[in-house]
């Protein structure tokens, strides 16, 4: 079966299953030919539940009706929006009843091993022959990631496209729950996308900022809205958004206000979440803004080592200035973590963390090769201890996780292409992390981030406050 025809229809599938049928109706007659031995035997039964899940929901993959003690390979395949193919696979042997249950049975090899319910997703990597330095990111969050799960006879490590699988199932992975609204924001010079949960609200709000890669990345915000937070994914690095040379925090304060003033947002329950450069911006706003007070902050793979009173473009350029500390490894990958090491003792060169007034959650990977986040977190703790506000700080350090700690069950990539915006230069950046520990870090940190946001942003009934009678 041609993957091209398979994915042509699978990508259309989520848009209109109806227009899909005619094309697919032909597949049985022309494209797919079961092998001659299969014409008389029956296929095993492959199931994936739920068939349509949120990206952070676990699924159950099970295979039945195999012969007992039969070797099979479970394989996942996804075509990205950039048209690259990603795959993962695990080797199993059916039990005495001819069953394989991925959530319980151990994979004996493949792109993941052991009992890994979600291994078919987080261990995905580009198929052999793909372009290099790829990163899997969903830019259109209103459609799902479509994943084809298949079962192959025996333990196969290559040539998946040359043989027909025994059985296949399709599953959808969504960043947006049904009914979540997506609205483009172009207000007061602020550019971004706001996601609003279903229901009357009002809801807590989150200002969500991605990293120095630029552009507008919406998927985390979409997922946060699916969990009950009004989320604004903020574009703050595009050339159209003239923030980079602004020394003040005005742009971010305006964005924060837009959330606060939204009729479905609880004004005093707005937090900020940032990754990488976005985390630095988060700390900057939390420490220095005189007009906005986030109720809590989440900083993923960030650092406080940046001068407070300087513009973003200064900060970014400054980072690239320490060329002597920027390494290029033997595979031509940029290793940037040493740029801020050792952590400076000069208070003018870093944010004053003693000024933080709200709960702060730091999420870091200790194999982060792009930024010295663990060392930064230690210094942050030291500063806050000295200032007496350390009780506000929670730090999560994940062993062998890298820089890009994202929502769970999406693939890990140790390095990928990156465009240095102001130089318009494409490089290969080493993010770090080992696949399995990084996947575990994504799963664990996401749950803790959601709990942290709920704890601080969702008003809780308090036994000391009398409840109004019905």
């Amino acid at each position, binding site marked *: 079966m041609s993957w091209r025809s398979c994915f042509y229809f699978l990508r259309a599938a989520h848009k209109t*299953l*109806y227009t899909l049928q005619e094309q697919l109706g032909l597949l049985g007659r022309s494209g797919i030919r079961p092998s001659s031995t299969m014409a008389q035997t029956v296929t095993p039964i492959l199931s994936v539940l739920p068939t349509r899940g949120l990206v952070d929901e676990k699924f159950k993959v099970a295979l039945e009706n195999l012969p007992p003690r039969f070797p099979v390979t479970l394989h996942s395949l996804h075509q990205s929006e950039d048209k690259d193919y990603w795959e993962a696979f695990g080797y199993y042997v059916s039990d005495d009843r001819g069953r394989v249950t991925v959530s319980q049975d151990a994979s004996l090899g493949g792109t993941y091993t052991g009992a890994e319910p979600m291994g078919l997703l987080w261990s995905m990597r580009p198929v052999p022959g793909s372009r290099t330095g790829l990163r899997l990111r969903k830019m259109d969050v209103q459609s799902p990631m479509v994943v084809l799960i298949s079962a192959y006879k025996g333990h196969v490590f290559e040539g998946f496209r040359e043989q027909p699988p025994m059985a296949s199932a399709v599953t959808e992975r969504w960043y947006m729950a049904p009914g979540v609204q997506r609205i483009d924001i172009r207000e007061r010079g602020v550019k971004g996308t706001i996601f609003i949960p*279903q229901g009357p609200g009002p809801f807590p709000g989150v200002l969500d900022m991605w990293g120095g890669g630029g552009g507008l990345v919406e998927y985390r915000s979409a997922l946060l809205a699916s969990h009950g937070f009004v989320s604004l994914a903020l574009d703050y690095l595009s050339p159209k958004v003239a923030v980079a040379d602004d020394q003040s925090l005005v742009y971010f304060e305006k964005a924060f206000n837009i959330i606060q003033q939204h009729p479905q947002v609880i004004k005093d329950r707005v937090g900020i979440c940032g990754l990488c450069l976005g985390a630095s911006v988060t700390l900057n706003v939390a420490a220095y803004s005189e007009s906005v007070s986030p109720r809590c902050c989440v900083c993923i793979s960030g650092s406080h080592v940046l001068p407070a009173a300087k513009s973003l473009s200064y900060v970014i350029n400054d980072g690239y200035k320490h060329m002597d500390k920027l390494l290029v490894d033997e595979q031509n990958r940029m290793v940037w973590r040493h740029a801020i090491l050792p952590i400076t003792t000069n208070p003018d060169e870093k944010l004053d963390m003693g000024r933080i007034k709200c709960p702060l959650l730091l999420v870091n990977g200790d194999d982060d090769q792009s930024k010295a986040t663990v060392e930064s977190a230690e210094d942050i703790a030291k500063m806050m201890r000295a200032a007496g506000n350390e009780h506000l700080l929670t730090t999560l350090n994940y062993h062998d996780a890298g820089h890009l700690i994202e929502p769970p069950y999406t693939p890990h990539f140790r390095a990928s292409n990156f465009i240095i915006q102001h130089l318009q230069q494409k490089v290969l950046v080493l993010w770090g992390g080992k696949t399995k520990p990084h996947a575990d870090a994504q799963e664990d940190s996401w749950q803790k981030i959601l709990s942290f946001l709920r704890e601080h942003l*969702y008003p809780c009934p*308090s036994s000391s406050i009398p409840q109004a009678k019905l």
Partner: protein
Amino acid sequence: METNLWRLLLSVQPSRGLVDEKFSVRVQNAPPAHPLTMHALLHSEDGDTWEAFGHYVTDSGGDVNVSEDPSLGGTYDGVEPMGLLWSLRPAPGSRPGLRFRKRDAQTPMQVRLSVYQGHQSEGFMDRAVLASVMVERWYMAPGVRRVNITEGGVTGTLFLPPGPGPFPGLMDLWGGGGGLVEYRPALLASHGFASLALDYLKQADVKNEYFEDAYRVLQQHPQVCKNRIGLVGLSFGSSVALKMSVYSNVIQPRCIVCVSGSHIQHVGGTLADIFADIAKNQKKTRYNEENQVIWRDLLLPVPTDLSKKVDVSQEQCPLLLVVGEDDQNWPVPESADDMREMMEGAGNSHLLTVLSYPRAGHLIEPPYSPHCRESDRKTKPAIFIALWGGEVAPHSRAQEDAWRKTLDFLRENLYCSAD
């Protein structure tokens, strides 16, 4: 005016599920020991509104878990994980005799689940909602393909599972309600069966050969295992399935599922003859106190004459009968008893499995959709309200149990059994 000092969190997993998949509904972050009403709202394609609700009290942690906590009242009570769906009924003020049926099997049912303050039983549209989420319920899994069939004079819709196949096949025969009902075969395809919804009641004079032609179309599809085809019928469709399987040389199913069916029919003729026969017995129609039509007596008493009932002693494949003991539309329990007797007498009763459900009615459908005790039937010259029977909770349990056992039966006979 109530001051909301807290915001509760409502979550449903999965938010997009198959119609027969269980979901988990949870409320968090409310005060402890706090009364709440869980409410479900569904708009049918005809513009009618269906609703269900259950009364709960939060636990000491301020949580409600619908899968584990009892409803204290509403349209369902007790611990009922799926009660918000199966107890859906037309909202007050609706037209009488409504039946919920999804005509478009390719789009989901969209159910709005909401939480209300206190224990409410009416006026939901006028009250403020504490939280609300939209849940999708699908008849078609992703990757299932829908194909219009118009070959060889056969009209229907074929649903194919994803993957190269080949797959066991099913011919799905709906009941005398007419029209092409696609949702059950769509769901069956989502479970791995190439399923053909056959349109067979457009014309009154459909010939028996029509069913044989349809069977051949299914057999000859390149993604269908031609030796692994079953029949699934409901009501009148079950009658057709029984007759064809015994008397046709072309239709040789590997197994048959007859939901709410009867073997009582004029064996020698066409469908038109069967309808004419039934019409002759119109005077046996009864009415209940609400003037709803009870048609179950029209086929009774069970004949002894073998020209008037399918001779199931000649049945050669496993047969699963699903029986609602409160069926007011057809004499399904009596027919099942007679079929068992015939098969025991002939020595082939090992092929027979009967699932009999007390207080379940005629319309035993895929689970977690609203129960219909009566609905309108457009039978010339008037519209009657036909009484199907069944009580909500037992009927819904019957649907859940029968569906699971039906799928197991189909898998066992079509997927697992040796050639």
